[in-house]
């Protein structure tokens, strides 16, 4: 779901570094989705437990390992989205994309490190409000940037199509 931008301002901002408000909104969507994923996981766990105890109880576990599991879910969620095409579902909704500082796609490893850094220190995203380049602390560490990217249709309208490989991107052949 990526609408073609009709607003000239939106067209002009494609492939430009996004500000902190858009990024926080995308993060809010992602947090909601992650919580829903956690609820689904709890229901699954309760169902499995019901096989043995014969009572279906969904409960928020206070065990020691529930925190790390939640962190793992968040890391997997963000790392998967960024490693796959640079977007979590929240960023798809807001029309954002994570790229490397020079515009190239993220490698899966870089995406994973970025996800870990976000889970470890989420407030680092607020630095994007102050940074001259709209970079969060994680962006500065990993060498990434979040840009407005409404999808291929928008890129075509804006003339910033990524489909043609740039010289920096192409693999050295031979």
């Amino acid at each position, binding site marked *: *779901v*990526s*609408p*073609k*931008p*009709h*607003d000239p*301002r*939106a067209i002009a*901002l494609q*492939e*430009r*570094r*996004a*500000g*902190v*408000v*858009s990024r926080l*909104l995308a993060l809010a969507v992602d947090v909601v989705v992650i919580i829903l994923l956690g609820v689904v996981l709890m229901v699954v766990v309760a169902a499995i437990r019901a096989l043995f105890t014969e009572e279906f109880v969904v409960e928020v576990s206070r065990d020691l390992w529930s925190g790390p599991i939640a962190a793992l879910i968040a890391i997997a969620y963000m790392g998967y989205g960024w490693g796959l095409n640079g977007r979590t579902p929240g960023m798809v*909704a*807001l*029309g954002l994309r994570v*790229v490397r*500082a*020079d*515009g190239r796609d993220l490698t899966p490893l870089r995406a994973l490190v970025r996800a870990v850094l976000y889970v470890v220190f989420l407030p680092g995203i607020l630095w994007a*409000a*102050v940074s*001259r*380049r*709209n970079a969060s602390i994680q962006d500065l560490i990993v060498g990434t*940037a979040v*840009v*407005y990217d*409404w*999808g*291929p*249709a928008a890129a075509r309208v804006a003339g910033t199509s990524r489909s043609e490989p*740039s*010289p*920096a991107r192409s693999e050295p052949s031979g």
Partner: protein
Amino acid sequence: MSACQDGPDVETDKPLPGVAADGARMVADGLMSRLLDLAEALQTEPASSGDTPQAPAAAPAVVGESDGGGAIRSLVSLPSRVAADAAGAVAGAVVPRVVDRIDVNALLAKVDVDALVARVDVDRILDSIDPNRLLDRVDVDELIGRVDVGAVAEEALEAVDIGDLIQESTAGIGTEALEAVRLQSMRADDFLARIVDRVLFRKRPRDTALARPDATP
């Protein structure tokens, strides 16, 4: 159009007089057999001695007696039966020959089909047709089974930029709402950045362009 256009309107190998002779002969045969039947009947019935077939006027006088029976009655109805037989025989002999001689194409050429069609009220005919009954007769499943749906779909997909189409059709109103949200957040980004930059006494606007190595050769 075709090569063989022999003969004008009428074929001339079988002249009509011949037909008439045939018809007459068949009438005579019929008449004779009737008369022979009658003579046989009269030999067994001594009531009347009329040997001429044309005696209907005399017949009613004799019919008064009950013993006249079937022979008399058949005698009375003889002329009409003979006439009917003769007519049937003539028709049977003549009609096929006449039909043979008619050049149907020449006949049709004289008919103004357009004028004929113009006289037909197609709307009325269509009104009288029940489309549901018509459709009941059609086996749609079999019809679809004949169509190579895969090939048709493939062809259609080739003709249509499916990505664009899906993007524009599936989203609909949701797309507009989404675009509005994105635009609003873009404006908010810019607004907040200006405020922060003003607080920090920055003069230059933010650098939001990516540092593409290929951007400045």
